[in-house]
């Protein structure tokens, strides 16, 4: 457990807390994308690059776009 791992895990917790607390759904989706990117870095550090590629493509890419499309059909603020 190096310092980089600790910083990534700390950023992960902060992102998760902010996603749960914010009222602006677009901000929540963007922070959730950052959460997925950090998670992909952590998967790569945990020696599972296959999961890292899938997490980066699904979590940061397609899930963000689908959630944006869903928000554009409903309200922005919670």
């Amino acid at each position, binding site marked *: 457990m190096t310092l980089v791992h600790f910083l990534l895990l700390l950023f992960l917790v902060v992102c998760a807390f902010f996603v749960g607390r914010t009222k602006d759904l677009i901000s929540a989706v963007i922070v959730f994308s950052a959460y997925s990117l950090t998670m992909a870095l952590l998967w790569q550090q945990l020696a599972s690059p296959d999961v890292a590629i*899938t997490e980066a493509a*699904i979590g940061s890419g397609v899930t963000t776009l689908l959630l944006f*499309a869903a928000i554009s059909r409903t309200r922005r603020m919670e």
Partner: protein
Amino acid sequence: MSDIIVRVVTRLMIPYLQLYGLYIILYGHNSPGGGFAGGTVIASSLILYVLAFGIDDEDLRLSPSVARIIESCGALAYVGIGLGGILLGANFLSNKAAGFPLGIPGRVFSGGTIVLLTVSIGLKVASTMITLFVNIAEKEGEEES
């Protein structure tokens, strides 16, 4: 939607994104990756095109009917390759036992039918993702207009 920076950067990025997706699909049995991850990368490049150039450009983007046909062909190719193992006298999805040539280890065409299986999975995942996004985004545009 008509920002020139977005359009130019999208036009520059899409070939590299699709090449990276094809690399992940084709080398899925030798290195990290596979049909699901590579298909998602290709689908994200197509979604990026829709986002940059607008959803109304029916001639250039992948239409839902074509995407539906590609999706069905991917699933049918997977099942067909699996049934080929049964026709050659072994179990479903059997590879070496059914007599498929394995090829040289480390190359692209090594591992018998695994390359064809990952390519069919990639086609199905990519067309499913683009269909999902276009279906959600298109209805919103119809209500506005």
